[in-house]
C-alpha cells in the first residue's frame, strides 16, 4: 500500500513539473500586462445562486464555487485589471474531467467586452505553450491541434445547426440543452484548432450581459480545445435589478429540484451598480495541464484525488 502510493505519486512527477511551470507562465503573462494578482476568501457566506452549481458547506458558510462575486466587488471599487489563481469547490462533481476541488485562473478587464477575452485566451495559451517548449501545435490523445491565432468562432445557434440533431430552440423547449450540447456538439469542438462557442441563449448566461441587438442572447462564450471545455467568459451583467431577478429565478429552480437554496449575496448586489462595463473569464488550470501534458484524465495532473486521501 505504501509502496503503491509512492509509485502512484512518482509517475505523476513529470505532469506536476509541467503544471508548476505553466502556473508560473500564467502568472507572468498577467503581471506583464499590469494585471494585479488578487486573493479573495475561499470561505464565503453566500455563493452565487446558480441552478446547477452546488457549493460545499463549511460551517455556517460555504466554500466558494468561483471567486466571481468578490472579484466583481473589487471591479466595482475601481480595480480594472485583476486576476486570481485559486482553488474552487463544487459539490458532487467527479469524473474524468471533474474534481470537486479544482484550480481556476479567473481574470477581469474593466472597459472590455467578451471579444477582448477571446484575444486574451489566444495570447495566454500560446504564451504558456511556448514557455513549456511546445511550438504552436499541441498533440492530445493522438490528435494534433494547431494553436496559431485566430481561432475558430462559432455561435451556439450555428453549432447546434451544424452538429446537433435538434435546434437550440427545440433543445431548450424540451429541457435538453445541456444534454445535446455535451453529447452531440462538444465532441466536435476544437478538434483541429481551438473554438470559441459564443452567444448563448439568455437563460444559459446567468451573470452575462444581454446582447443589445438581440434580447434573447447573452454575451457569453466558452473555449473548447479537443472537445474539452476550458473556459467560460461573460460580458458582465451590471444591471443589479436584472441580476437579482436572475438569482431569484435560479433560487426558485433550486428549491423546485430540492437543492439547497443559498442566501442572496446582498453585498455583491449592492456593489454591482458601481461596476463599469467589464468582461470576466474563468479558465480551468487542471484541464489546460491535461491538454498540454497530453493526459486523458484530470487525475493524472494533480498530486492527490479525493479517493487517494
Amino acid at each position, binding site marked *: 500500500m505504501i509502496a503503491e502510493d509512492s509509485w502512484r505519486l512518482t509517475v505523476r512527477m513529470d505532469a506536476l513539473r509541467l503544471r508548476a511551470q505553466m502556473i508560473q507562465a500564467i502568472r507572468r503573462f498577467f503581471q506583464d500586462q499590469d494585471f494585479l494578482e488578487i486573493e479573495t476568501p475561499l470561505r464565503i457566506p453566500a455563493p452565487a445562486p446558480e*441552478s*446547477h452549481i452546488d457549493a460545499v458547506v463549511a460551517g455556517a458558510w460555504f466554500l466558494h464555487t468561483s471567486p466571481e462575486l468578490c472579484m466583481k466587488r473589487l471591479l466595482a471599487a475601481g480595480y480594472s485589471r485583476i486576476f486570481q489563481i485559486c482553488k474552487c469547490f463544487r459539490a*458532487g462533481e467527479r469524473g*474524468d474531467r471533474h474534481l470537486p476541488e479544482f484550480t481556476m485562473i479567473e481574470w477581469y478587464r474593466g472597459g472590455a467586452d467578451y471579444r477582448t477575452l477571446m484575444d486574451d485566451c489566444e495570447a495566454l495559451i500560446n504564451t504558456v505553450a511556448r514557455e513549456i517548449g511546445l511550438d504552436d501545435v499541441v498533440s492530445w490523445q493522438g490528435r494534433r491541434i494547431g494553436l496559431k491565432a485566430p481561432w475558430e468562432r462559432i455561435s451556439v445557434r450555428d453549432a447546434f445547426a451544424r452538429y446537433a440533431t435538434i435546434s437550440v430552440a427545440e433543445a431548450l423547449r424540451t429541457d435538453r440543452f445541456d444534454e445535446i*450540447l455535451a453529447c452531440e456538439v*462538444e465532441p466536435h469542438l476544437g478538434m483541429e484548432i481551438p473554438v470559441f462557442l459564443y452567444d448563448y441563449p439568455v437563460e444559459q448566461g446567468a451573470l452575462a450581459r444581454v446582447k443589445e441587438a438581440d434580447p434573447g442572447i447573452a454575451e457569453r462564450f466558452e473555449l473548447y480545445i479537443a472537445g474539452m471545455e476550458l473556459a*467560460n467568459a461573460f460580458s458582465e451583467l451590471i444591471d443589479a435589478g436584472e441580476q437579482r431577478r436572475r438569482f431569484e429565478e435560479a433560487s426558485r429552480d433550486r428549491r423546485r429540484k430540492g437543492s439547497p437554496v443559498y442566501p442572496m449575496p446582498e453585498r455583491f448586489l449592492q456593489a454591482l451598480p458601481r461596476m463599469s462595463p467589464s468582461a470576466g473569464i474563468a479558465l480551468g488550470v487542471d484541464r489546460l495541464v491535461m491538454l498540454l501534458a497530453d493526459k486523458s484524465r484530470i487525475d493524472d495532473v494533480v498530486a492527490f484525488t479525493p479517493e487517494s486521501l
Partner: protein
Amino acid sequence: MFTASDLRKGLRIKIDNDPYIVTEFNFVKPGKGQALYRCKLRNMINGNQFERTFRSVDVFDEADLQEKKMSYLYKEEGKYCFMDNLSYEQVFLNEDQVGEAKNFLLDNIEAEILLFEDRPLGISLPNFIDVIVTKADPWAKGDSVSGNTKPVTVQTGYQLQVPPFIEEGEKIRIDTRSGEYLTRVKG
C-alpha cells in the same frame, strides 16, 4: 433507492422491472449546465446492452438480487439443475447462464447462484477446484522436443494444458476464473 449520483461501474439497478448492471460510466457536465451521468447498461436477463444519459433528478430502485448457495445435481436437455442447500428447492439454468462454469461442474459442487426475484441469472464457482485427470498421454521422460505442456482431460470433460509430468489418475487444482492449471494436489 439510488439517485443518479450513486451511479458507478458495477451498480445493479432495476429499470422497467428488469435488473441492469452498469458496464460503463462517465460523469459529464457543461460548466454552468446540468450534471449528466452517461451509462452503458446491460440487461442481466437477456444480455441486451444500451446507452443512456441520466440527470441528477433521476432515481432508481435497487435490483433485488440475491446470491444463494446451491449444489449442482445434474444436466438434462441442456438445463443444469441446482438445489438450494437450505430449502431443497431446485432451479434450472441454461447454457448461457452457466457459461464457462460448465467446465467445472463437479457432482454436488457448491456454487453461488445469482437470483433476481427468484429467477436464476448466473453462477459463480469457488475460485479453485481440485479435479482428477482422466486422460493423459504418458510422460516421455527426456523428451524435450515435446514442449513444456501437454493436453489432458479431467473428470468434468474439460481439456487443458498442464506440465508434462502430470499423469492419468492424478489430482490437479484449476483456477475456475481463468480455466488454467495451478498445481498438482497430493493424496
